[in-house]
Structures are given as C-alpha cells and as structure tokens.
C-alpha cells in the first residue's frame, strides 16, 4: 500500500511550487470527479511509494465553495495518511485559520511554514518551538521558491504517516463552546469513536447541511443537537457558525501573540509601493489597457500568431500533407485510404496542433500575470463593469483573447475561480468574432453591402451585445445561481514570477488541451472528412455530392425562416464547424469556383443573385454566434469538464444564433412590408421573451438561504 499524503493550504501560499518540488515531473493533472476543480496528483521524488495529492487552494472547510467541499470530502472520507499544511508565514494569522480546521480531522499534520525567507527579510521572528507546541503538531520552516525545507517536510510527513500520531492542539475554545462540542460528540454514536469526531462535532454545531446529510441522524438526535446549539447561541448572542469562526480567530490571535514577534508594524513594503501605482485611481485603467494590449499583441498578433500560422499553413499545409501523400502513393495505397490519412487524420492532427503554439504563448503571458499577482488586480479593477453582466472581472481576458481566436479564449477562462462565472464565460466567449470569422464578414460585406463600413463593426457590436445579454439572462437560471461566492478576494503580494512555476503552468495547460480537447477535435475532423468525401453508396465523391451535402439539403428548410433556406448556405454553415473560414471556401466549391481569395470576391456575383441583403446579414449573424469550430468545441469540452455542460453550451449558442437571426430577418421583412404570420409572430414573441428575461427581477439571496436544521 502506498502512503497517501495530502497537500493543503491557502491560495497564494506557495502550494503549487512546493507540489512541483516534491513530485518533479511525475504528475497527473485532471479534474475531480464530476466537477471542474483541478485535481493534481504525483509521486514523491525519490520515494515512489508515496503519493502526494494536491488539494485546491482553500481558505476554510466551509460547505459553500466547490473547492472546499471537494477538499474536505477527500480529507474526511478518503483519509490520507498525513496532511502537509502549507502556511504562508508572512500572512500567518489568516493561514492558521485553515490549520485549526485541518487539525480537527484527526489525520497527522505537518506544517510547512513557508516563505520564511520573507519573514526574516522583514526582520520578524517566529518561535517555531512555541508555535509547534501550541498547535500540537510538527512545524518545519520552508522557502518553496528557493527549494529549501521541502524534503524535510516530506520526510517528517512520511514518518508521521507510519506512526499515525494525531495532532493535539493546546489552545481551547471558550468553556461554553467546548462543553457544547463535547456534548455533541458524546450524543452522536456514529461519531463518538470516529477519528474525526472533533471535525464532525464542529460541523454539526455549525448546522452544516452536507455533513448532516452524510451522517443520517434520527430526528430525536437532531432535536437534541439543536437544543444544545440554541442554548449557546442565546448565551453568546450570535449564530453558531460565527461563534466558531470567532473562537478560531481568538485562539489564533493568542497563539500568534506568543510565538510571532514583529519588528515594526506599519511600513510600506515594495509590494505596497508597486500597488500604489498599478491600482492607482487614475493610472490603473491606462496601465491595464497597456498590459492587455501587450498580451494580445504578443500572443495573437505577433509571436503566437506567426507560430500558429506557420504550423497551420506551412507545416500542416505545405510540408507534412504532400510528404505523407507522396509516401502513400509510392507504396501504392488505395485512394480512399490516402484521403483518410491526409485529409482526415493529418488534417485533424493539424487542427489540434495548429493552435498549440499560440496557446503556449498565451498561457505563458497569463501564467506570468497570475504568478506575479496582477491577475487578482484585474478582477479588482474590472469588477464593477463585469459584475453588471453577471460575469467576473477576469472574464475580460478570455473575451479579449477570443477576438483573435476562441480556442485560447475559452482556455483562458481557467483563471476564473467562481464556477458559474466561469461557465457563463466559456459559453459566451466565442460570441466574439474571432479572426477566422473575419473572411465571412468580408464576404458578406463585400458581396452584399459594397464593403460598407458598418458591417464589420456591427458584427463586433452583436458579439458584445450577445455576451452582455447572455450574462444577464443566464445568471437568472438555476444552474448558475448555485454558487453564491461573494466577491471577497485576497490581493496577494506582488513578487517576481518564478520561471519554473510559469513554465510548469504553461505546459500543464498545453498538455491538457492536447489530451482533452485533442480527441474531440480529431474525431470530429475525421467524421466530417468522411461525410464530405463519400456519398450514401460509400463511393468517394466531391463535396457537393457527398453525404454532408445531402444532409445540408435535408436541414436547409430549418433555415428558411432566417431567409437562407437554400442547401448551399446550410452546407457552408456545416462546413464552418471544421473552421469558420471554411464557410467562404465551401461557397467557392459549391458555386463551382476553383480558388477563392480571403474575402471570396469570386463568388460575389453568385451570392448577389441568390441572396437579399437582409438574408445575407441574417446568415452572417447566425454564423458569428452559432456553435464555434470543432477546435473551440474541444476547448469548451475541456473546460466544462463534462459532456452535459458542453452540450448545454453548444445548444445555447446555436439556439441564440437562431433566435437572433430570426428576429433580424423577420423584423426586416416586416419593415419592408412582407409580414409572415407564423414567423413574424414568432420573432415578436422571441423579442418579448428576451425583454422579459432581461428585466425579470432576480431574488439575490436565492441559494443563500439556509434552512434551520430542525424546524
């Protein structure tokens, strides 16, 4: 049996750095079952029998955030052999708050007193012996960034794990509370002899619904517990949850007073001075704009863009496919097999890897912003605007990046902690017109509106409006209210990003994109290759006679209410799923033009013959808003963590695209005097529904209300 050691600590306590140090490159990164919280696991360097489980960065073991619930379920139900608790020594009071909760679980705990170098530099002194005595567990000084102490901590944890020594804190809560907790411990049989009895007693005292559910107590016991709680609540004039929190912080203050000696209290640190400039009332926004421009410029316009263009156009355009094809021809391969390998598989692999360079560059920039502490300031600066649309201040980055490419845009949503904010951001990010949609805009603007200057800006305007409206509306639906985490956020100290952390972050994300998104993208590309290369008798044909074309003909009538029910438009839209710029190319193929340029000037005349301006605009809007290309769908799948939410996202995007295009086309028809009874009415109903959902009042504290334990 391998020894399992859990790594727990506050966000920004240096946990990730320590984890990377302990495990080296032997890590597994995934999601916790059923949720999008990242799960990291690895084997201890030098001792393969020890598994290190990295828990999410948390402040508490409350039942209110997903990360905290995941962590405590793991700690209490799966019982690791020991816990390494990383405590930021330069921010010791708040960090010890989690410690007081971890000590109650009954699993051996070692404290890694991290960033001790920062404390020493400030001239402060922490008495390790006193601290260790007061907390009743081992304390080791570490400086994870420099790599000192990590090994000692791991060694201590392994020893403790084999001994199974439970922590025995010296500090006590007030007599009233201690008495109540003991009473609860003795009252509930199922926890009396449990290793984590103190944990359960505290949770029952806090009226923690999730624990209550887990323990399945009978009504009589529940009533008795409620009596015990009410008595203390009346005596201390506060609710039980607040009583416990107060008790914890009171104990911590006493512990800290005895063991920590501060040199001088209020002094501006370097970090404070940097912050004075970066979040200055007047300078903050210009600096923010400049930094965002830089991130965009590096990852989309220049370095990342060049690299991705090269991989897409040269490596997977001019080099690999001809080489592979040449080889296959020379060994006398069948035509269909050559096509499968070259167009299907190599094309699919290219679609996955093509985005990779851009993504690596973007992740590099984002990792730096995160690691140095600026990411939290972005939320601080932008919160006021984005909160209005039900999004997080950090949603700005995914949306900005998505104007270049939706794939890294969706992946950039990873930095948003709040799950419902993150989901909405993922669902709406691809509404921004990405660079691959620009040829569609150019085609429609050029062919139908004589390159009128308003078409392109209106596409961006529609994209932004779709994001705002979606944010406001989606926030009112049940699946998105569940997590009411308030905006109470730590602003970590600025520090120089460590190259190691940044590069590990960057490659972790790139790897998880290739693995999780790659499969979806590859399969979809092979699938569409098949559909567009064969007809129903499975003979190879050109695209216009393929299965895809006949499917296009079947679904074409669905788009008739939007003004473009001909099969060519439907097939182009379907082909846009491979890559949005394919829409233009497919028009070229279907109208029998050999080569089409970026803006499809060759098919303008054909389009003018078969489209009205209104229908063309409706077609444009549908293609801008509907489900994105397979690569972005793969990214959505990766970030949502499960198929259900991926389908909800795609359904919502396509549904919204349909509704908006319908409204545009039908209202346009009305103004030109062609009122369609059925679809015109439908458009009016849809507008009414949007307005209703937009202004429908929302019960702010839905999901926050907590039922009393026994009523």
């Amino acid at each position, binding site marked *: 049996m391998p020894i399992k050691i859990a790594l727990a600590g506050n966000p920004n306590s240096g946990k990730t750095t320590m984890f990377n140090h302990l495990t080296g490159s032997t890590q597994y990164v995934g999601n916790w079952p059923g949720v999008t919280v990242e799960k990291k696991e690895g084997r201890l360097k030098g001792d393969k029998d020890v598994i290190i489980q990295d828990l999410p960065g948390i402040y508490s073991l409350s039942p209110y955030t997903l990360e905290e619930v995941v962590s405590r379920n793991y700690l209490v139900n799966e019982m690791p052999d020991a816990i390494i608790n990383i405590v930021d020594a330069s921010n010791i009071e708040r960090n010890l708050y989690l410690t007081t909760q971890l000590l109650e679980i009954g699993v051996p705990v070692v404290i890694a007193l991290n960033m001790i170098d920062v404390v020493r530099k400030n001239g402060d002194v922490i008495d390790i012996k006193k601290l260790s005595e007061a907390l009743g567990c081992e304390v080791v000084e570490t400086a994870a960034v420099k790599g000192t102490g990590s090994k000692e901590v791991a060694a201590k944890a392994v020893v403790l794990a084999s001994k199974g020594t439970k922590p025995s804190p010296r500090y006590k809560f007030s007599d009233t509370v201690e008495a109540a907790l003991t009473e609860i411990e003795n009252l509930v049989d199922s926890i009396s002899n449990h290793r984590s009895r103190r944990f359960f007693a505290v949770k029952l005292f806090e009226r923690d619904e999730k624990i209550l559910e887990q323990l399945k107590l009978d009504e009589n016991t529940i009533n008795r517990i409620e009596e015990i709680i009410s008595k203390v609540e009346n005596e201390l004039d506060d609710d039980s949850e607040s009583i416990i929190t107060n008790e914890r912080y009171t104990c911590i203050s006493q512990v800290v007073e005895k063991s920590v000696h501060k040199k001088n209290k209020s002094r501006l640190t370097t970090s404070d001075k940097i912050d004075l400039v970066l979040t200055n009332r007047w300078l903050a926004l210009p600096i923010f704009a400049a930094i965002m421009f830089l991130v965009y410029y590096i990852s989309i316009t220049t370095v990342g863009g060049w690299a991705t263009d090269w991989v897409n156009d040269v490596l997977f355009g001019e080099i690999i496919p001809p080489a592979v094809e040449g080889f296959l021809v020379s060994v006398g391969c069948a035509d269909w097999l050559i096509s499968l390998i070259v167009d299907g598989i190599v094309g699919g692999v290219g679609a996955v890897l093509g985005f990779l360079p851009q993504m690596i560059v973007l992740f590099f920039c984002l990792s730096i912003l995160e690691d140095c502490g600026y990411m939290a300031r972005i939320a601080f600066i932008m919160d006021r605007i984005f909160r209005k649309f039900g999004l997080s201040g950090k949603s700005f980055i995914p949306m900005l990046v998505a104007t270049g490419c939706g794939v890294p845009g969706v992946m950039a949503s990873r930095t948003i902690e709040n799950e419902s904010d993150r989901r909405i951001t993922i669902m709406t990010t691809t509404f921004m017109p990405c660079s691959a949609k620009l040829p569609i805009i150019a085609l429609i603007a050029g062919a139908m509106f004589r390159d009128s200057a308003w078409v392109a800006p209106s596409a961006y305007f529609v994209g932004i409006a779709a994001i705002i409206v979606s944010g406001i509306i989606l926030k009112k639906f049940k699946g998105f209210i569940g997590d009411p985490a*308030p905006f109470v956020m*730590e602003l970590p100290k600025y520090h120089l990003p460590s190259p190691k952390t940044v590069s590990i972050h960057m490659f972790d994300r790139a790897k998880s994109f290739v693995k999780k998104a790659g499969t979806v993208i590859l399969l979809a590309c092979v699938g569409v290759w098949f559909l567009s290369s064969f007809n129903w008798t499975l003979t190879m044909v050109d695209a216009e006679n393929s299965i895809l074309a006949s499917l296009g003909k079947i679904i074409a009538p669905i788009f008739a209410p939007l003004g473009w029910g001909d099969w060519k438009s439907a097939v182009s839209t379907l082909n846009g799923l491979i890559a949005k710029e394919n829409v233009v190319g497919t028009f070229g193929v279907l109208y029998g033009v050999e080569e089409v340029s970026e803006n499809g000037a060759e098919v303008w005349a054909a389009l003018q013959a078969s489209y009205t301006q209104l229908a063309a605009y409706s077609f444009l809007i549908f293609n801008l808003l509907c489900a994105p290309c397979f690569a972005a769908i793969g990214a959505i799948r990766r970030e949502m963590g499960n198929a259900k939410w991926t389908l909800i996202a795609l359904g919502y995007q396509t549904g919204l695209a349909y509704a908006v295009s319908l409204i545009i086309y039908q209202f346009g028809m009305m103004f030109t005097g062609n009122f369609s009874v059925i679809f015109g009415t439908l458009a009016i109903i849809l507008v009414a529904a949007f307005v209703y959902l937009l202004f429908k009042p929302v019960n702010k504290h839905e999901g926050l209300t907590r039922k009393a334990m026994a009523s």
Partner: protein
Amino acid sequence: MRTLRAVNCGETVKVVKLHGEGAVKRRIMDMGITKGTEIYVRKVAPLGDPIEVNVRNYELTIRKDDAQMIEVE
C-alpha cells in the same frame, strides 16, 4: 449604525458586528474579519467599487454592498 462602506480611505476602524447570513457572511469571516478586528481602508478601485482593505496584515478586496454588512465603531 456605521458600516465599512462609509469609512474613508486611510482610516482604521474596529469591527463591532457582522450582519447578514449564510455563504457571504461566512466567507467574510473566514477571511479574518471578525468581531474586534482592526480594518485599515487602503483604497477604492478606479471605477468606485470594490474597496481594498488591510486586515490581519494582508490585503483584501470587498464589494461595497458586502462591506455594508460589516458594522464598525
């Protein structure tokens, strides 16, 4: 009743009581704002909300709506 919302930048105040309930209140308390804690209001965000405070020796940002739940001296 004076709340944290009304406190000016540069002022230090002491927490008297926390109002509200459930997740929001718990999160605020988890972050170290409890009865008797000293809070130094450092600055307001460029767009007027949220605010940045120093509590228990670290920097915390909180929305004005949530700050209203914190009664101070």
